[in-house]
Each structure stands twice: as structure tokens, then as C-alpha cells.
């Protein structure tokens, strides 16, 4: 049966550059001297280290556990000794270092107990599957790095369709393609596990029509596995057909709501790499410690390598015959959505799919690389190319004017930073960089707002505390004075209490501006105000310092 496809608007056709790295088989990396494991490799909070410097660790051993419920554990990729847990360059556009567990490898590649032990997957319950996937530290390997187990939880039975994304539409990137070429049967087995974890039957496997060989292999694998619930669909080759929301639209004609998740319309999307990792984790008890990565660009031998997570990028470049002396730029990710590394000692992480090496002689043109842009001529080409249906020109305009409210009104946060607008812009305006700037600036503002709210609260408490201490002091003094006067009768005490309370009340009343919004109140509002007053009154009584509340009979007369 042919499925009807709904093409999304926009997108661009790009030169693929995939042949170079797919003409030779997947290689293995030589063991690097050091493995560097950043604690924050996924969306959510960083993992918490549970090893110490000097400790020996084994391959597959948990070295950092999930920070909370939206996080993922991290495992040692090989055996060795923990050198340090400290700041190290990481793959981040800022070039700022971050906390990493650094392991000196010992070459023995000794595995932790139970690692690689085959397991009968069919015996596991839904909960056991989910727990195992969580424990294996699997996150979305397609690039986003969202902890996978969260996208396999389906208690509410909201999810009805599972989409397996084998599109891989960005130029140069070929790791998913090579995975399907070599492990189609395992991917199908992984998909069966995911169907069981979700408790659903329906699955669609999507592959771009520029990969006929892999399509055929997957077809065979499905046939052999005897899983008729899996539907294989060929999608047209257009960038960014592999974007999650674009793929869902192509396959189902449904649009994910603005700033929503596919889950909202009953769909989850997983990448083929993630699916394979799930299979290895469940069937062989192998946590996520390696993945396929494409090394391409100015290297003698472009190829896909099976790389241990935490391997320094420089190590991979050298292995593929790149000359580190003539590098101009090293890009992590593809030419459209990747970013330039500041330091090639940064390690590859769970979400790294491609290392694009550039040397001074042959530079891969990036959309956002121009240092020299011309004014916008309002040609509208960017809007035609935007696969999300945004208005890139308006976004650019408001981002440039730092009008962060307006830029959000134009749905900045639905922009997937695909770079299509950038690519077609005749004025070579670095549009995506403007959007990234605006997004991060807005996040920073929000963070500042939170911090200032905390400061406000703390300052209010500080003033309250000062006031309370002052009152306590005054009361103490008064008491002392009275004691000296030798007139500490019950009546005097009562009077003292009354006077103190009167003072507090007056202070409270006068320390504030009278509200200006209390005219014409409804009955309801009046009631609320009275309740608030009652609360405040009660609070005032509680304010009374312990020392003088021996006699409480004065309260009724208040």
C-alpha cells in the first residue's frame, strides 16, 4: 500500500556530499589515551558523578548517575583510572569549558560484570524495559539528546504512532545510513522493543529516497522479523525532511502545535541510532558508550567510525588523515545546523553525529559564515524557504532591534534553526545567528528575572527579620526597665503587651502605602480582604515574642 504523503512547504535542495563517507565500511577507532565525559550531554539537568579521582573504572560502569528525573546516567566507555573531575573544553558554541569526568584509559578494555550478557528480551515487562532503557543512559541520538525513556513512557495511552526517523537529510552526515546498512535487523528488533515499551503496535519507518540500498535492507529485515505492523515509507529528498515536525507533517499531514510536542498529537519520533542503542542495551546489557559518527571534509579518508563516547575530536581527525596544522574550522554536526568548535580537544558526546573538518584550502561553505552581509532587500526568499512557515525577515528585523517581545510574537521559539532562510538569502545575512542570539538573550533575561525575584523575596525577609529583631530588643529593654522600677505586676505586663501590640499595629499600618484599588469592591473581593486582614491580625499575635506571652489573658480584649 502506498501511503499518501503531505509535503511540507519550504525547504531547500542541497548537494548531498554523502558518497565520500559511505564508500568504505564503518571503521573502529583506536583507543584514545584519555576519555573525557562531560556531565551534561543531554537535555535536562547534568548527571552527578559517583566516582572519585584515582578510582579504577570498568567499561560500562556507571560513573555519573542521573541528576533528577529529566537526566541520564553516564557510563565509562572503556576501562581505566579516573584522572580528575574538572572543567575541560567541551563541544559548545561558546567555547566555555564544563565539568567532565576524565579517564586515563589502560588499554585492557575490561568490562564491568554483566556487560554484554545476552538477555531474553521477550521475558521483560513494560516497566522493566523502560527501567533498563533509563539505566542504559540512552538519549536521542539524532541530535537533541532528550532522555529516551521519557519518550517511551505511555501510561496515559496518548501515544498511538511511533515514527522511526531514518531520513538523515543534512549534507555530509551518514552515520544513520551506515547503521541501517550494517544493522537493519537489529534496528527492527530495537523497534519491536520500543513498540512493547510504548504498548502500541503502529510504527512507521521513514527513509529518504536517496538511500535505496538501505531501504531495501530495512524492507528485508522487516520481512524476516515478521512484523507486519511496521510500515516502511520513502520520503522525498529535501532538506530538512528529517526534522521531527517536518517528518510528522510529511507522513501524517498533521502539524505539531506551536511550541508543542509530537506527543500532543499522539506521535513519538525516534532516531534509528537510538533504536539500535536500545536493542544493544536490552538484548546485551550494553549501556550507551559508543556510537557511529561521520568524519568528513578535509580529511584523507572520510568515513563513518564506531566511536567511544568521550573520544577527543582531534583523535578522530588524526585517524582519518586530517592535518591538524592546516585546520581552519572543525564543525560538530552538519554544515547547516552544526557549530564550530573552539578546541579540537573537546570530546564527542552522545549526540554527536558528524565531525566536519575544514582546512584553509577547502572550506565547506556554511550558511551562517558570512562576515559581510548586505542590507535586506525584502525579497521574501527566506519566507518561501522556511519549512516551519515563519517570517524570517520579520524575525531578523526584531532580533536585530533587540525587540524580544515582538520577536516572540513572530514565534521565534518555533524556529528549528535549520538554516534554510540563511542559505537562500541573497544578501547573505547571518539570519540564524540572529535567532540564536535572540533566543539565548531571552533565556538569559528570564534567568535574571528569576534571580531578581529571589533577591526581592530575600530582601523582604531581611527587612522583616530586622524589624522583628528591633521589636524584640525594644521589648526586652522595656521589660528590664520595668523590672528595675520594681513594678512588674500582672497589670503592668498586660499594659506592656498591649502597648507593644499597638506599636506593631501602627507600624504595619503606616509602613505601607494605602492600596489605591479598593474602591467599588464586589462582595467577593470584600470578603477576601477581610480574610486577609484576619490572617494578618493572627500573624501579629504570633509575632509576639515568647518571653512576654506568659499571660495570654490580654488577647481577648484586643
Amino acid at each position, binding site marked *: 500500500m502506498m501511503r499518501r504523503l503531505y509535503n511540507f512547504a519550504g525547504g531547500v535542495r542541497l548537494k548531498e556530499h554523502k558518497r565520500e563517507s559511505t564508500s568504505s565500511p564503518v571503521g573502529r577507532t583506536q583507543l584514545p589515551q584519555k576519555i573525557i565525559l562531560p556531565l551534561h550531554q543531554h537535555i535536562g539537568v547534568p548527571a552527578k558523578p559517583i566516582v572519585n579521582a584515582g578510582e579504577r573504572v570498568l567499561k560500562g560502569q556507571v560513573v555519573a548517575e542521573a541528576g533528577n528525573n529529566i537526566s541520564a546516567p553516564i557510563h565509562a566507555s572503556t576501562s581505566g583510572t579516573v584522572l580528575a573531575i574538572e572543567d575541560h573544553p567541551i563541544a559548545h558554541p561558546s567555547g566555555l569549558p564544563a565539568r567532565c569526568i576524565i579517564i586515563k584509559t589502560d588499554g585492557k578494555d575490561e568490562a564491568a560484570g554483566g556487560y554484554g550478557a545476552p538477555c531474553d528480551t521477550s521475558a521483560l515487562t513494560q516497566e522493566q524495559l523502560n527501567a533498563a532503557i533509563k539505566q542504559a543512559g540512552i538519549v536521542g541520538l539524532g541530535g537533541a539528546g532528550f532522555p529516551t525513556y521519557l519518550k517511551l513512557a505511555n501510561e496515559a495511552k496518548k501515544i498511538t504512532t511511533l515514527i522511526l526517523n531514518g531520513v538523515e537529510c543534512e549534507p555530509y552526515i551518514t552515520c544513520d545510513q551506515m547503521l541501517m546498512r550494517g544493522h537493519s535487523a537489529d534496528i527492527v528488533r530495537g523497534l519491536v522493543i520500543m513498540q512493547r515499551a510504548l504498548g502500541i503496535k503502529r510504527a512507521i519507518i521513514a527513509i529518504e529516497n536517496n538511500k535505496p540500498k538501505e531501504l531495501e535492507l530495512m524492507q528485508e529485515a522487516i520481512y524476516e522479523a515478521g512484523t507486519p505492523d511496521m510500515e516502511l515509507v520513502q520520503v522525498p529528498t529535501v532538506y530538512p525532511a528529517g526534522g521531527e515536525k517536518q517528518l510528522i507533517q510529511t507522513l501524517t499531514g498533521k502539524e505539531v502545535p506551536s511550541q508543542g510536542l509530537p506527543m500532543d498529537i499522539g506521535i513519538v519520533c525516534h532516531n534509528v541510532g537510538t533504536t539500535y542503542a536500545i536493542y544493544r542495551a536490552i538484548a546485551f546489557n550494553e549501556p550507551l558508550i559508543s556510537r557511529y559518527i561521520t568524519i568528513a571534509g578535509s580529511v584523507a579518508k572520510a568515513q563513518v567510525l564506531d566511536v567511544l563516547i568521550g573520544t577527543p575530536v582531534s583523535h578522530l581527525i588524526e585517524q582519518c588523515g586530517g592535518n591538524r596544522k592546516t585546520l581552519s574550522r572543525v564543525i560538530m554536526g552538519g554544515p547547516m545546523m552544526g557549530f564550530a568548535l573552539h578546541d579540537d580537544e573537546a570530546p564527542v558526546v552522545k549526540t554527536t553525529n558528524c565531525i566536519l573538518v575544514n582546512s584553509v584550502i577547502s572550506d565547506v561553505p556554511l550558511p551562517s559564515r558570512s562576515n559581510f552581509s548586505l542590507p535586506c532587500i525584502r525579497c521574501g526568499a527566506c519566507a518561501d524557504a522556511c519549512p516551519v512557515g515563519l517570517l524570517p525577515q520579520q524575525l531578523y528585523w526584531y532580533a536585530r532591534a533587540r525587540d524580544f517581545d515582538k520577536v516572540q510574537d513572530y514565534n521565534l521559539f518555533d524556529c528549528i534553526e535549520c538554516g534554510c532562510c540563511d542559505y537562500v538569502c541573497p544578501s547573505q545575512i*547571518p539570519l540564524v545567528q540572529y535567532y540564536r542570539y535572540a533566543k539565548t538573550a531571552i533565556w538569559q533575561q528570564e534567568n535574571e528575572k528569576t534571580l531578581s525575584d529571589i533577591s526581592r523575596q530575600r530582601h523582604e525577609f531581611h527587612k522583616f527579620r530586622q524589624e522583628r529583631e528591633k521589636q524584640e530588643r525594644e521589648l526586652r529593654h522595656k521589660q528590664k526597665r520595668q523590672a528595675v522600677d520594681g513594678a512588674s505586676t500582672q497589670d503592668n505586663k498586660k499594659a506592656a503587651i498591649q502597648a507593644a501590640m499597638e506599636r506593631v499595629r501602627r507600624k504595619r499600618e503606616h509602613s505601607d*502605602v494605602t492600596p489605591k484599588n479598593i474602591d467599588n469592591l464586589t462582595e467577593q473581593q470584600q470578603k477576601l480582604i477581610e480574610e486577609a486582614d484576619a490572617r494578618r491580625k493572627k500573624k501579629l499575635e504570633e509575632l509576639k515574642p515568647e518571653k512576654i506571652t506568659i499571660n495570654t489573658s490580654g488577647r481577648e480584649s484586643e
Partner: protein
Amino acid sequence: MLTSMLIFAAAALVFGALLGFAAIKFHVEGDPVVDKIDAILPQTQCGQCGYPGCKPYARAIASGEADINQCPPGGEQGVMALADLLGREPGPLIAEPSTGNSDEPMVALIDEETCIGCTKCIQVCPVDAIVGAARHKHTVIEAYCTGCKLCLPPVCPVENCIVMDMVRPTATLWKWPEPLQIPELMRGAGS
């Protein structure tokens, strides 16, 4: 070491609980205009505006007593936001921010070796970001410090005991640089 850490952890918990409690219990229903102004002010609580904190300055603005350009930490952006809110004319800031500038956030740092434990700094810190006890070493809870500089000498009697330190940028809170704007280079070239 462990004990002191435990004590701090316990103190943090207690203070946290107190704070939450205070926020709910002691919130005084105030003037909505003042609250709106206060929401724009940066809450550094440094007093550079000439008022003892952001809320009093907010009240002074609301009553018309103060102008809207007296808060240096808020920067031009803050003045613009206030002008927007109140429909007043934005003027130039009265002073360059000496502190609390959001572009270069600073926090106080106490050299625990030289601190004599006089508790002077605790008394002035507007957000209770300093912990310590008489004749014991004091320390700043970085996450709460607004960088107001009120605790610096002469409040602290020991020279170089409290210094201001740059907040180290982190990858998670990093901001992409704004693309360089080459101002309309080509304009005029053709005309």
C-alpha cells in the same frame, strides 16, 4: 569539614523554608503600580538610587517624587522599560553603574583567612547572602549575592577581606554573540 557542610546544608534548608513561609505569610497587599515598577527594578538593593532598596525607590517613582533614571544597575534598558510602563520621558542615567551591571555580573568573595568574624557584613547585606557567626569565618552564598557592594570596606574593617569577583560564565547561560552589524555599507556606494 563535613560538619560545617552539614551545618550549612541545614541552615540553607531552614532559611529556605523560612523564606517560603515569609513570602506567603508576610506578603502585604500593596499598590499594584508600585509592584509593577518594582518588578522592573533589578533588585540589586544597592541604594545607588538614593533610596534604601528597590521597593522604596519604586514607591518614590510612583508618587512622582523620584525620576525614572536613578537606578544604574538597571541600565538604559531599565529606564526604557520604566518609561514604557509609566508613559514618562526616558532621560539619561544619573550615573554609570558602579555595580550590578547585568553585562558583567559580580559577586562578593570573602577571604576566609583574613576574616575576623566581626559580623559587620552580615548586618548590611540586604539579601542575607552572608553566613557566619561572631568570631567565626564568614562566607558568601554566591547564588544569593546581588553584587551590591554594600559589604565592602569601610563596612568590613579588614582590608582586602571582601573583594568583588566576576561571575564565571557557564555554557548553559551563555548568550550567542549578536552578529556584527556593518552599518549599511553599500548604501550610497551606488548613488
